[in-house]
C-alpha cells in the first residue's frame, strides 16, 4: 500500500494556528499537546533587502493522518481547516507530483 503524507506549500502558510487547534479537537488532545505545530522562521532581511519570514506547519509523532476521518471518506482535520489551503493529504507519489509542479518552497512530511 502506498504511503501517505502531508505536503505543505510553505510559501503561503500564514501562521494562523488553525491546524493546531483543529488537530487538538479531532484527536481530543490536551492544551499543551500538538499533533501538528506551526513553526516560525522569524523575519529578517536577505542580502538584497527582500524580507524573509516563513511559517511552516509540520505533523508530530501524535499525528495519525486522521485515519478515522479518512476511512469515513473525509480528509485530515488540519487539511480541511487550513485557511490558506496550503496543506494537502495524499500518497507520497501524488504529493511529490504536486510539489514538483509548484517548484518552490514545498515540503512533504510523514509523521
Amino acid at each position, binding site marked *: 500500500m502506498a504511503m501517505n503524507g502531508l505536503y505543505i*506549500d510553505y*510559501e*503561503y502558510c*500564514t*501562521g*494562523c*494556528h*488553525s491546524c*493546531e*487547534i*483543529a488537530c*487538538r*479537537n*479531532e484527536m481530543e488532545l490536551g*492544551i499543551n499537546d500538538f499533533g501538528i505545530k506551526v513553526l516560525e522562521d*522569524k*523575519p*529578517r*532581511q536577505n542580502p538584497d533587502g527582500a*524580507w*524573509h*519570514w516563513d*511559517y511552516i506547519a509540520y505533523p508530530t509523532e501524535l499525528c495519525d493522518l486522521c485515519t478515522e476521518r479518512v476511512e469515513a471518506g473525509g480528509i485530515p*482535520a488540519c487539511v*480541511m*481547516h*487550513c*485557511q*490558506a*489551503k*496550503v496543506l494537502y493529504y495524499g500518497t507520497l507519489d501524488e504529493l511529490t507530483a504536486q510539489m514538483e509542479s509548484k517548484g518552490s518552497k514545498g515540503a512533504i512530511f510523514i509523521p
Partner: protein
Amino acid sequence: MIDMNKVASDVLAATPKQGPSENMTPWKTQNGDETIFRTCAWSPPGCHPVGCGLRVHVKDGVIQKIEGDPEHPITRGSLCPRCLALKEYIYHPDRIVHPMKRKREDRGKDTWEVCSWDEATDLVANAANEIREKYGPETIAVFGGTGREANNWYPQWANLVFGTPNSIYAQPGWSCYGPRMTNTAFMMGGGYPEIDYACKFPLRYDDPRFVAPEVVLVWGKEPLRSNPDGLYGHALIEMARRFGTKIICVDPRVTWLATRSAEHLQVQPGTDTALAMAFIYVLAHDDLVDHDFIEGWTYGYDELIERVQDMPPSRAAEICKIPEEQIWRAARLFGNAKPSSVAWGLATDENTNGAQLGMCLVALMCITGFLDAPGGTTLGMGDDQGNVVRDGGAISADEKVDDGTDSTLELALKNGIMSPETWFTKRIGTDKYPCVGSVMWTAQPDEFLKACETGKPYKMHMCQFVSSNPISCIAGEPQRWWKALREMDFNFACDLFMNPVIMACCDVFLPVASTIEHDGMVVTHYGLNSSFYGAENKCAQVGECKSDIEIMRMVGKKTFPDFWNRFDTDEDYNNFHVLRSWLPWETLRSNVVTMSDEDYFKYKTGMLRPDHQPGFPTQTGRVELYSYAYANFEEDPLPYFEPCAYGPITMPEMMKEEYPFTLTTGSRRQEFFHSEHKQVPSLRQISPFPEIDINPADAEKYDIENGDWVEITSPYGHVRQKARVVPTMKPGVVHAMHAFWYPEEEAAEPNLMGAWKSNINMLMPTSVNAKSGFGNTFKSMICNIKKVEDNHDTNHPDKHGIILERSRQAEFDYQQTWRPTDTPVVDPIPYDEIISTPDTPLIDNIVK
C-alpha cells in the same frame, strides 16, 4: 438623500437568489445519536459578519464537536482559531449562564446574586420607565462595540426598547467603519466597496463572469487576521496562488502579508493621505486612467488632479518617509494593472486626516475604471438590515407598520416609541458634528463623554452595554469613562462573561446566547455589500442564556408593550425586522447559504438608483470626486493632506526627548476579537501577554530585550506590555496590542481584572477629532518606553490620580489651533423649521 433600503429591496426582490443545489447536505441531519447542524457563524463571541461555515455535532443537547463546513462556498471547510476554540468559549467555567443582580452601592465589588429572568428584566424595565418619566428617554444610553452581531441590536435597544436616540459607539471619533461608510455614501451613494473575489457567485472563481484582480492595493489593513467587515481575508492568498494576483501593501509594519507583496510601502503612521494623493498624481501624470469612465461616470476629476499637483511623489516621499522611486513604481504597478482592486482598512478611519485619505482611495477605485467591474472593487447596494438611518421621507406617525424594510428609526417614530423631536434635537453631539449625525445612527461619542461629565446639554441617568466593554477596549481616556459611567442611576449589560465595565458599573447582568445558540442571519458587510445571506441556526441551549432578540422582546414588552407584544417568538421578529421579505426564515435556514449573485456594473443597469436610471445615487448622479456632500458640511470637497495631531511634523519639540516614539495600535491578531477571547485557553496560549513591537535598534538604545516588560507613556497615561523586538517595525515607531485585560485576575476593584495595566487606549485622548467629528489618534500617537520589572502596577486612578481633564489638552497648542471649539460649528436648525417643510426629507433638511 436616496432611500437605499427601498432601492435594495426593489432590486433584490427582482434578482433571483441562489440557494444551494439539490445534493447539498440539509441544515440538520441525524447520524446515530448525534445531530449535525450546518450553520454560519457571527457572534457572540465577537466577529465580523464573515459568516464562516460550521458543522456542529450535538448529542443529548450538548455540543460534542465544532468543525468547518466543507460545503460553505466561501470558507470551504476552513476556520480560524476562534471558531475552532468555540466549544472552550461556550462551556467555559467562567461563563455567566443565569441573570444576576447587584446593589447599586456595591458597584466594583464581587457581590453578584443570581436572580430570575423575570426579576432581572423587571429591574431593567422599571428603572428605564422611571427614568424616562422623570428625566426623559434621551437620558438613557445604549453602548455597542464594533463589528459584532450586537451592532444590529444596540440601536434597536435604544430606539425601540427605550425610545432614546443615544446609542453610543464609544471609540473617539466613531473611527471604525463609520468614516469609510461616510466616504462611500457621500461620493458614490452606494453600500460599501470591497475587493472582488467572486464572493457573490455560487460557482465562485469558476463563474464565467469573474476575472481575477491583477493587483490588489491593501491599504492600512491586515485582512488575514481581521476579516473585515465580512471580507474573507484568506481569499487574497487563494487569488495569489491561483491567479497570481499581486499585492501592494501600505502599512507602517512589515506584516507577513507585506513579505508576500509585490510592493510594501512602509509609511510613517498617519501620513498616508499624502501617499494616496501622490498615487493619483502618478496615475494622471502617466495617463493610467480610464477616460471613458471618468467622462461618463465621475464628477470633479479635473479639480481632483489640480489638487494633487501639490503632492508629487517627491513631496509625499518626504512626508511618508519612504523612497520616492518606490511611490512611482508602486503607483505604476497599480495603474497598469487590469483589473485593479482596492482594500481599504481601519487605518483610513483612525486618523484625523482619514476622510481625505478615504476620498483618495475612492478615487483610486474609480478612475482606473474598475469600480464594480470584474476583478475590480465591487459596490454594494446597501441592503442595510434595517439599521441605517434613512432619508426619513416615509416617516409619518399615522402610517401603519406594514413594511418589513422599515429602518429601526422609522419603526420607532411610526410607533410613537420615540418622538421626532427627541431624535432630531436630543442626539448628543450631532448639532456640533452634523456630518457624523447624518450617516451614523448614534450620538457622537466624544461629545457624549463631555455630556456625562458636565451634565450639558442634559444629565445622563442610565446606560446599557450590549456586548461592549468600552473601558477595556474602544474608549480613549478610559478612566474618564469609568468615572462618568459609575455615576449613572442604573446600568446593565447583556454579555457572556464578567468584564471590567460590568464589574465596575453595572447593576444587572443578562446572559446572552452565542452564535450557535440562537437563530439569526449573517450578511457580509452588515448588508451594505452582500456576498451571501447566511443562516445562524440554533444548535444547543446553554444554561438560561437567551438571544439578544429574546432579551429585547422581554424588556420591550415591559417598556413599549404595544409594539413588542406583536412578536411572540424570535422568528416573528426576525421575519419582521431582521430578514428581508424575499427571504423568509424557513428558506434562509434550509438554504444555510443563499448567495446574492449580484452582477457587475450595477451603475450601468440602474440598480443603484431609486428611479432605476443608470448612474449613482448622488447629487450629480456620478461618483463625486469633488464631493458636494462634504462641502455641505463645510469640509473641503477635495482631499488635502493635514499632518496628524500627534507626530513628528506637529510636535518636533516634544518628540525630541519626552515622547520620542510614534505609537500605533489596533492591529488584529487571529486569536482575539478586540477585548474578547482572553479567557479561552487555546487562544490565550498563542498570546499570553500583550506585546509592544519595537525595532531592534530602538530596543538596544533603551536597554530593552525581547520579553522584557516595558512601560509605555503618553501625555495621557501609562501602561505595561511585553517587548517583542522585531526588525519589521519602522525605527522610531512602536506598535502596541490593544484591548488587553486579565479575566483570570481579581475581578473586584481596585484591580478590576487588570483593566488599567495594559490597555493601550489609556494613552489615547478623546476629542481629537477632524472637523467632521470623525477620526482619532489610535494610528499615530506619541509615546516613550522604558524597561520595568513586571506588569504589577495596577494603575488604579485612586493610586495614581491619572484621570485627565479636558484642560490637559491645552498643553498642546497646535492641536488647539485646528480642533473644533466646544461651541457648535453650525447652529442647529430649530425643530419648528424642520417640521415646517414636510416635502423635504427630514435628514436632508437637518443636513442643509
